[in-house]
């Protein structure tokens, strides 16, 4: 075979070549003193690079970094910040409009006020509707649980209600344990 190029020589030394190419080069090296010399030189050079000293930061560097840490940005903080920003914007708008009503811009400000009021009213009715729906779900759940309780009382005769509670408590406890232990499991995996 032809002599390998320098890229192949480095790839060979860094074990980046597939086994087939590696063997091919090894066979060639046995027959070619020039390539053996080149390989030995680049090996010495790469080993020298690996021997370069590392630069070390001073011992108190970690403390220096930790004392300068900014507040942690978490998604919850971001949402709170966004809500706070919106509230501030809204307050400024209302304050601006309130001041505007004392000037010649009174009709315009009044119109915007009306618009804002309508928007707030729509938003409030939406929230009330959502609450009503949630209440409906809770009511439905209550009725369902009542039916289940009735059935259980029929299945487990007088005095067996304790046993029914026990039957229900076991799966509930298991679910609860699973929820509690889940983060610990993630941590212990590493």
């Amino acid at each position, binding site marked *: 075979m032809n*002599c390998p*190029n*320098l*890229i192949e020589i*480095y790839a060979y030394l860094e074990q*980046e070549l597939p086994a087939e190419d590696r063997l091919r080069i090894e066979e060639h090296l046995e027959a070619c003193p*020039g*390539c053996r*010399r*080149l390989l*030995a*030189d680049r090996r*010495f*050079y790469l080993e*020298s*690079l*690996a*021997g*370069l*000293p*590392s*630069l*070390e*930061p*001073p011992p108190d*560097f*970690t403390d*220096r*970094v*930790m004392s*300068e*840490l*900014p507040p*942690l*940005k*978490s*998604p919850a903080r*971001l949402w709170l910040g966004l809500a706070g920003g919106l509230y501030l914007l809204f307050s400024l708008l209302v304050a601006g409009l309130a001041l505007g009503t004392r000037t010649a811009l009174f009709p315009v400000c009044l119109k915007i006020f009306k618009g804002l009021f309508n928007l707030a009213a729509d938003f409030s009715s939406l929230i009330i509707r959502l609450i009503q729906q949630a209440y409906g779900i809770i009511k439905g759940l209550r009725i369902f649980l009542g039916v289940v309780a009735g059935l259980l009382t029929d299945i487990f005769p007088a005095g067996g209600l304790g046993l029914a509670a026990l039957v229900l408590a076991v799966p509930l406890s298991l679910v609860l344990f699973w929820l509690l232990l889940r983060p610990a499991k*993630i*941590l212990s*995996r*590493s």
Partner: protein
Amino acid sequence: MAAEEDRTLVRRSLRGERQAFEMLVRKYQQPVFNYFGRMVQERELSLDLTQEVFLRAYAALHTYQEKFQFSTWLFRIASNLLIDHWRKKKLPLVSIDPNPEEEEQQLRQLPDQEPAVSESYERKELLKKIEQAIAQLPESLRELFVLRHMNDFSYEEIATIKHLPLGTVKNRVFQAREWLRARLEEK
């Protein structure tokens, strides 16, 4: 596994455990400082840049995606910071892409009777000479060289840090090595 350990430390840091982030700082302060030290060649500036990397990483920790290694994510911050630093200093950008045909030719040819480095230098003397030569490497070649030889990143990891194709990374590291080696021949 080290990568998984890092992910756990990030999760704990995000839950507000400063001690977990401190462990990440302790683990990576030396490689990051080594990177800046080789790149900017000034100790105090390297310390400032290293500190800035950790402060930026902490502030942006919620954006870290676990599909990446923490080390490559951290070094991407470091690399971006370095680019900002160079821009502020208005260093001229050195073109590191030679004529492709010329490069192809160069890679195919084997050096004709070059003096062996091992014959010209003692190891200690060679290390000193290499250190001096690294400081003269063009910045973009130097960065990939440092990531490979000082920080021991794989070619794939460097490609992730620098958003470069794998082939480009391998080529540039090769160019850097041979550029440095050529300087060693100049006694």
